[in-house]
């Protein structure tokens, strides 16, 4: 029997029971749509985070922190590192930058950062921020493009009370409503938790510069919600000579250089620091997202398996109903193999149609979800809302198609095999 005729026959059988076929297909549609929606949203999210990270984390900078754990959350997600680090006993001090600078000719510069959660208070604003103590000149030489004033300027040798703020500190909603201007005086406050009872420490600072919009995340790099005070002021205000991280700028971004310097720094501090490079963060990120995708995709795949059981159920019912028909086909000379193909053909058609509709539906669902999340600002955290654009890769499309058809066929195998094994005499006698 010709292949086209086999498929035509399968199709005529499906057409006879349209409603039943539609219900069976619905199971596949839901499963595939769930897979496509979840995967395209997580891939979109990953792309967004990666691109934001790439902005805030250049390939030629390394981040040195105390202790083993590489990424520890602080105020504002990735945007800042919490002050109190692990209790490894080892601490980074601000003057370690000199030791680091001497380690390798590939190191251009390094800057120590002290960060604390605090508030900025002006006449009509009380805003929770992360306060960073940095050496303005060095920090600017590392982050030339982002640590750049849009209003006012960044003083090269600042007085103790000068302050530079990110654009969202001054203008949180980014709609033109500005809470203070350069030259204005603001209160810089942090809650000193190293003494009891807890005490709010405050000093009056003068705003000398507001940064341009940076957007998104950045590790170590300037942030839209950051407040930058001179390092000496931070040391006396926070009463510490320790720092939370040291940013190391390299002369080039070869992976060999990155690896060599990473090793040199780690060895210099006897393995008591962790050195994060953008490549390491990005690869960690892709591992994390890989796991998330596997997990979400796996859950969605289970729903498809449920659909598969439904297909098997329907096929067995239809096999029983069509016993006589199978007997006729065999009596007319149809081979067992062809009977098998006809039944599998029906499941291929159901799987194919279900997968196609499922992919379209899942894609639509992903876009609706992304829009709703974007508007609601659910995603964005402390660093300001950003939008996700769902991504549908050819791999996901082909994979879903193959999976949808595969599941249908696998669950149809048993009923189809039983149909093909029916003996014509018995099938014809069947009432």
């Amino acid at each position, binding site marked *: 029997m*010709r292949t086209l*005729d086999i498929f035509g026959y399968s199709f005529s059988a499906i057409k006879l029971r349209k409603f039943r076929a539609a219900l069976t297909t619905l199971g596949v549609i839901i499963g595939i749509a769930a897979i496509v929606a979840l995967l395209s949203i997580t891939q979109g999210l990953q792309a967004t985070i990666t691109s934001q990270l790439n902005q805030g984390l250049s390939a030629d900078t390394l981040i040195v922190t105390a202790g083993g754990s590489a990424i520890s959350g602080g105020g504002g997600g990735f945007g800042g590192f919490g002050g109190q680090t692990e209790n490894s006993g080892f601490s980074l001090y601000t003057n370690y930058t000199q030791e680091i600078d001497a380690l390798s000719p590939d190191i251009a510069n390094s800057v120590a950062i002290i960060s604390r959660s605090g508030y900025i208070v002006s006449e009509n604003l009380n805003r929770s921020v992360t306060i960073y103590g940095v050496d303005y000149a060095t920090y600017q030489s590392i982050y030339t493009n982002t640590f750049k004033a849009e209003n006012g300027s960044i003083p090269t040798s600042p007085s103790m009370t000068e302050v530079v703020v990110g654009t969202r500190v001054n203008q949180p909603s980014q709609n033109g409503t500005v809470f203070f201007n350069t030259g204005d005086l603001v209160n810089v406050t942090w809650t000193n938790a190293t003494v009891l009872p807890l005490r709010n420490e405050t000093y009056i600072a003068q705003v000398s510069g507001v940064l341009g919009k940076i957007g998104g995340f950045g590790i170590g790099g300037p942030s839209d919600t950051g407040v930058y005070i001179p390092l000496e002021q931070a040391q006396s205000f926070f009463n510490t000579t320790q720092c939370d991280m040291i940013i190391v700028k390299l002369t080039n971004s070869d992976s060999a250089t990155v690896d060599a310097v990473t090793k040199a720094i780690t060895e210099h501090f006897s393995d008591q620091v962790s050195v994060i490079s953008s490549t390491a963060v990005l690869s960690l990120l892709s591992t994390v997202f890989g796991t998330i995708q596997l997990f979400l995709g796996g859950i969605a795949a289970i729903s498809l398996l449920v659909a598969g059981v439904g297909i098997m159920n329907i096929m067995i019912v239809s096999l029983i109903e069509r016993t006589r028909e199978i007997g006729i086909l065999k009596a007319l000379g149809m081979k067992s193999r062809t009977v098998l193909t006809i039944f599998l053909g029906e499941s291929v058609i159901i799987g194919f149609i279900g997968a196609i509709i499922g992919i379209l539906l899942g894609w639509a669902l992903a876009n609706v979800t992304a829009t709703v999340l974007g508007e609601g600002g659910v995603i964005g955290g402390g660093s300001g809302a950003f939008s996700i654009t769902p991504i549908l890769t050819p791999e996901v499309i082909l994979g879903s198609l193959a999976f949808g058809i595969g599941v249908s066929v696998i669950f149809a195998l048993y009923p189809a095999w039983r149909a093909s094994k029916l003996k014509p005499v018995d099938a014809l006698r069947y009432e």
Partner: protein
Amino acid sequence: MPTNTPVVEAINVKKTYMLGKVPVEALRGVNFHVAAGDFVSILGPSGSGKSTMLNLIGALDKPTSGQLLIDGVDIGTLSDNQLSELRLKIGFVFQFFNLIPRLTARDNVELAMSIAGVSKSQRRKHAVELLENVGLKDRINHKPAELSGGQQQRVAIARALANNPKFLLLDEPTGNVDSKTAAEVLSLLKKLNTEDGVSIIMVTHDEKLAKQARRTVKMFDGEICADEANGQ
């Protein structure tokens, strides 16, 4: 006219069904032959093994023992696939017609050809011709439920003839139709036999109909008890 070439040769054919653990001997050693071009009717009481015999000749089942040669080949030695191929050369008309309800008369006839691998355009043309031959020219697009019993019967005959079979097997073809339709069907069969040379084996209960064949084989309790030519 019957020739000397046998299309069916049964040598001591036995068929035993197992009903649970109880063996039921449906055929107890049947010897029988049909020459090409012959028209044989099989007559016998209910349960005598007529359908069992016909199913074996139609390659729908294998004998338990003995030899059954169809066109010179012992079907007992054939694989499932080879049996399927053999069935393509045999036209079978079942007692209850067994048309596929969702297909029209023409599609039912076409189906037999499509299983044999005939191309769409060829089988379409041939199906219409076959239906015209059995007098159903104006019913080709009717589904079985929209046809009378006699019309369904004729569709089944047209389908059985679709692949130019060596021989035609009919299991009580007139069991469900009135005597007038039965006479019509029978004259159609005689025409096929005399004009087109199709060998025919027909199972029936009706002695008058059986007499119209060239030869009548009588069965009783799984054995052949008489085999006589009908003088015409």
